[in-house]
Structures are given as C-alpha cells and as structure tokens.
C-alpha cells in the first residue's frame, strides 16, 4: 500500500493536530509564484502547465517532498521542467545560482550552506 499509494496523495492518512501556522511570504516566494503564473500563460506556450509542475513535484521523492516548503517545491519542480524543455541548460542554471550567491555576498548578505 505504501508502494502503490504515492506520497503526495495523503487524504485520509493518520496525522497530528492541525497547527494553525502562517508566515509572511518572502520576496523569493512571491517571485516564484509570479514565475509560475507567467510561464503558464497561453501566450508563452504555455511553457509550463500546472500538471507538469505537479508531476515534477510528485517525482522528487517523499523525503524531499516533506523536507521542502511549498514554494521550495514549486521552484524546484518548475526549474526541472524548464531543464527538460531546454529553456535553459544545467550549465546555465548552475552559473546563474552562483551569480546570485556572489551578488548576495558582495552586498554584505549571508548565504546559507547546503
């Protein structure tokens, strides 16, 4: 049952009390949301369909799914779909992430490890 039932498909499973947590969304979360909306617009293909993003989320593995926050799943899944479609390359992605981190350090900000 734990094999044939996929980890995102959780309706009815035992779980603890609902913690009424909330947080102020961070700028990168708003940005992620906007990226997904823009890529989903018909005028851009669409380059991303919501079911493609969901599929990518469902393929990341149960441990990662539970470890990541909601918008972390979104950006990771969307990035994977863009890589699959060749919108940008793995090489370009790696360099772009390092460029963002370098900019953060140059501005005196901190960069989390891992």
């Amino acid at each position, binding site marked *: 049952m734990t094999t044939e039932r*996929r980890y995102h*498909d959780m*309706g009815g499973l035992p779980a603890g009390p609902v913690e009424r947590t909330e947080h102020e969304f961070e700028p990168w979360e708003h940005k992620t949301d906007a990226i997904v909306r823009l890529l989903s617009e018909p005028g851009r293909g669409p380059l991303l*369909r919501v*079911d493609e993003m*969901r599929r990518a989320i469902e393929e990341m593995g149960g441990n990662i799914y539970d470890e990541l926050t909601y918008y972390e799943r979104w950006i990771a899944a969307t990035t994977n779909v863009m890589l699959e*479609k060749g919108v940008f390359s793995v090489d370009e992605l790696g360099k772009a992430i390092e460029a963002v981190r370098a900019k953060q350090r140059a501005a005196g900000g901190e960069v989390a490890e891992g």
Partner: protein
Amino acid sequence: MSDFQPGDTVKVGTRFPIGHVRTPYYCRGLTGEVERRVGTFKNPEELAYGRADHEPLTLYRVRFRQKDIWPDYKGLDADTVDIELFENWLEPAA
C-alpha cells in the same frame, strides 16, 4: 465512454499507476453519485507530460458518503465528500 447525468451512480476505477493522476487513492474502487457535470477539460494525465494535442475529457463532481469511504467514520449518514473526477476513471455502477 459513458455520459453521466446528475444522480447517476458511478464506480471509480481500481488501479494504481505510478504516473500523474488526479484521482485520490482514498476513493478508488468506491461508488458515488454524480453531483454535476462540470464541463470538458484537457486530460491532466497527458498534460503532465507536456502533451496537449488531444480531445478534452468530461469532468464530473462525484459525491461520496463519508460512511462509504471510511468504515469507522464518526458523523452523520448525510456527511459527504465531493471529488472532481474525469470520465476515464468512472464507469456505471452495477
């Protein structure tokens, strides 16, 4: 594929592919009642893999009695769950 009307009794398919589907595990193989015919939409099982060149499917809202889903359900007989399900997962209930 059958065209269902509100009030028709339908049975959800019992199958467990590893691919992307929008039919929750907990309702598979169960019988419910069509609440409404929502309209036609592209098939998420195809869209998920980047394929959009296909005929849309009919989407229904199907109402299940909680007591039919969870044998140990605590609540009223009238308590229900409504789920959106595509036609390829539904067959007429015997």
